[in-house]
């Protein structure tokens, strides 16, 4: 592993982060039934900002 060229090592780190991302989204999906991701690839919540109750309930500073 240490003998690999640096760009390849960086690529491995990036792939690891990619796996981490999908793991985190999976955790989000499993643990947050009230606020699930839309999908694994594209899951920002498009309509959330307009719903005041959602914003208020999700924004941690206004619990």
């Amino acid at each position, binding site marked *: 592993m240490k003998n690999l060229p640096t760009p390849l090592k*960086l690529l491995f780190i990036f792939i690891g982060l990619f796996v981490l991302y999908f793991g985190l989204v999976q955790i989000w999906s499993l643990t947050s039934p009230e606020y699930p991701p839309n999908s694994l690839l594209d899951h920002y*919540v498009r309509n959330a900002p307009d719903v005041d109750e959602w914003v208020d309930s999700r924004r*941690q500073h206004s619990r």
Partner: protein
Amino acid sequence: MCVVCSVQSYGVLGITPYTIGFFPYVTKKISLLFSRISHSKSAEEAIHPSKVFTSGSSYNLFTIFVWFLIILNVLPFIAPMAASFGWYWISEPIYFVYSFMCHQFHWRSLHINNHQVAWCTRDTFIWGSFLAVTLAVKHGFITKGLKWYWLIPFTIPIALDGGIQTIATMVGFNFNEQFYLSTNLMRMITGSIFGIGLGVVISTFLKEEQDRIDL
């Protein structure tokens, strides 16, 4: 305190998805700081930098930097878990501190137990990749550093993604009408690329400085 080197504040390096300070100036200052510690006294009386914090142990400034990054990356995930258990005395200070580093829009953040992580997806992966590279540097997997100007290609994706989104937000103002809105996947990809570049430049530099002092 400088959010990157955690050593001393120079007030010029602000790492957010949108800004990068004048990096060469900072590296020079950090270099001066390291040399100042090692040469502040005569050779006989000088305190070796590796023994500044814990005498005789293997802890040194670079190790402290690594632990700073670890804590910085772990705390945002503790906050939503604590909040879900109702331990707001833990979560609220974390959210408050991280609110200075991130916009904390919940629709741009990952969630755990119905509570958002204390900073957005982009920041999560900027600092996560920074930590990953720093750990690789610490354990000798990455030894060759890059010159500061190599940060430019690593910055282009995040500048395009975050920059266009910021402009679109300002122009559209209403979040549902802006012409471009990034996705968490894009935030992760661009943030990771930027963080990896940042880590290779800064961490290898700090490690080299530490090794030079340890010799």
